[in-house]
């Protein structure tokens, strides 16, 4: 849906220049809720504003649905991208309906249709049209104003919505409420959202993907769970805060307990050769991989033995189910996956290359270790 390619923004010239955004790449799928987060000055807002060309990129490309936005008319582009800004920025001299309808009006959509949609949207966020339609922004509370701000971004039915710290200026209770509403709204309408915040709790609450930035670069882009369980480096750990990283079955990833470097064999290996390798490595299982080293299936010594003499190739004997988990899958979820007759799960990375194996035994052992660790911590 949205692709950023080598996107760079430089402010100033020559020696005094400042790299606000440094050569970043990002892929956003349709319907994905992406949260850009980082300390102030990390380039998150600059990145966001380059998407609708409020800030012109110095170099690099922004593709929406595969086509570059550089050549597009910026005004036209913005009318097709929803935008919610930090300080709400409602037009104070417009009524609520006129505020919501501004983009449909600019796009010269049918007045009757757009009014109907506006009233429907207002109802959806609990702003009773009979009461609020003809009021002015100054008559609304901050939370109500930002609801209108969100509706204004939704009114022309854009697929992509940019939100620049939209809830930053609200009190904590209103903020929680709007976060929940926003997440529900997004799931209901299946919008792609790029959301900037400096609040890690907000990011964890709302994101499908958290993009953590520092000094104009992406430090880690991953799901909240993966970031929590598998922070890329000490900067990420620090930014998230140790208290959110506590090891519990609910959030401890299988990566912490898996057997590393599983035996892998290519698809054209003969069953006999596989057996020999298993013997050599004292392994009960081998992971069969394709030419790109990606997971194809699991094979156990037992399976090979059962098929002895049937002259089958390795691929015919495979357990073909997709018995894979990602390294950030929690122990709890992995245990659930192991419940049905499956004995072993292969842990794979993003490109489906095997990085480890887990069985019920390894998971149990891992949990025991964690239990011990947290107990010994408690004693100290």
């Amino acid at each position, binding site marked *: 849906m949205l692709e950023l390619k080598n996107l760079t923004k430089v402010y100033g010239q020559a020696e005094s220049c400042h790299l606000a955004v440094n050569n970043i790449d990002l892929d956003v799928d349709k319907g994905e809720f992406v949260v850009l987060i980082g300390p102030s000055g990390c380039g998150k807002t600059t990145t966001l504003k380059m998407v*609708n060309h*409020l800030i012109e990129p110095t170099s690099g490309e922004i593709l929406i649905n595969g086509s570059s936005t550089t050549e597009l008319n910026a*005004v*036209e*582009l*913005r*009318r*097709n991208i929803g*935008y919610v*800004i*930090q*300080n*709400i*920025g*409602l*037009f*104070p*001299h*417009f*009524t609520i309906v006129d505020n919501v309808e*501004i*983009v449909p009006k*600019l*796009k010269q959509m049918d007045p009757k249709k757009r009014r109907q949609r506006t009233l429907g949207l207002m109802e959806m966020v609990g702003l009773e049209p009979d009461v609020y339609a003809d009021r*002015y*922004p*100054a*008559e*609304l*509370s*901050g939370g109500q104003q930002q609801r209108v*701000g969100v509706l*204004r971004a939704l009114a022309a039915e854009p697929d992509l919505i940019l939100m620049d710290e939209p809830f930053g200026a609200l009190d904590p209770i209103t903020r929680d409420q709007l976060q929940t509403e926003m997440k529900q709204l997004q799931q209901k309408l299946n919008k792609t959202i790029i959301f900037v915040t400096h609040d890690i709790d907000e990011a964890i609450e709302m994101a499908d993907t958290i993009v953590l930035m520092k000094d104009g670069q992406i430090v880690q882009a991953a799901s909240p769970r993966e970031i929590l369980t598998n922070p890329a480096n000490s900067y990420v750990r620090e930014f998230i805060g140790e208290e959110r990283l506590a090891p519990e079955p609910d959030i401890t990833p299988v990566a912490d307990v898996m057997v590393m470097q599983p035996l892998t064999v290519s698809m054209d290996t003969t069953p006999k050769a596989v057996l020999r390798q298993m013997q050599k490595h004292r392994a009960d299982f081998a992971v069969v991989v394709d030419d790109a080293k990606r997971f194809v299936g699991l094979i156990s010594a037992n399976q090979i033995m059962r098929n002895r003499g049937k002259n089958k190739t390795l691929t015919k004997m495979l357990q073909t189910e997709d018995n894979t988990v990602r390294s950030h899958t929690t122990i709890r979820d992995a245990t659930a996956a192991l419940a049905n007759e499956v004995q072993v799960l292969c842990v794979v990375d993003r490109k489906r290359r095997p990085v480890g194996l887990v069985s019920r035994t390894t998971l149990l052992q891992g949990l025991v270790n964690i239990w011990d660790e947290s107990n010994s911590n408690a004693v100290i």
Partner: protein
Amino acid sequence: MVMSFFQLLMERWDEVIFALQDHLVLVAIPIGLASLVAIPLGIIATRNRWVELIVMTVASVLQTIPSLALLALMIPLGLGIGKKPALVALFLYSLLPILRNTFLGIRGVDDSVKEAATGMGMTQFQRLYMVELPIALPVIIGGIRTAAVIVIGTATLAAMIGGGGLGDFIITGLGMVRDDLILLGAIPAALLALAVDFILSGLEKLLTPRGLRIPSKE
């Protein structure tokens, strides 16, 4: 003296009305022209730092020249005496209040509102007439009001260079040491200033968008 003033007013009523009309011309034409020039200039000044610097400096300098001196300056500048130099001087004099208020009014529109307008996909021009001008309008009218009140007063000096208007009575009264004549020019001028101020402040309120008249909840 009060009696002799009223007597004089009765006697010279037609002259007073004529001078008042003359005075209104001395005010309306410069204010009208100054609005036509200063409002666009003020808008451009918010868009361009160089225009801002040049225009605001020139207007401020013009404003610091004493009004009588500015009127008198018209003579050596080749405009001679009479209506024309008076109109030019008063025009120059009314530029700054209108210019400054337009500039401040537009610049004063909340940055987040401007960012939203652009972010929603308004063109520069749409942003100006749909958002910035309506919000700045009361401030701009305020500038016109200030300019009008100043010019009504300053226009009485126009008589010094043969510009006519209510100043004629005052100048003659000063020359002849006749208080009633001075009052014949001064009182209508003062009343005119009050009336114009009242009307324009009414217009200012009328043109303030409804949404801006409500005290904010926050």
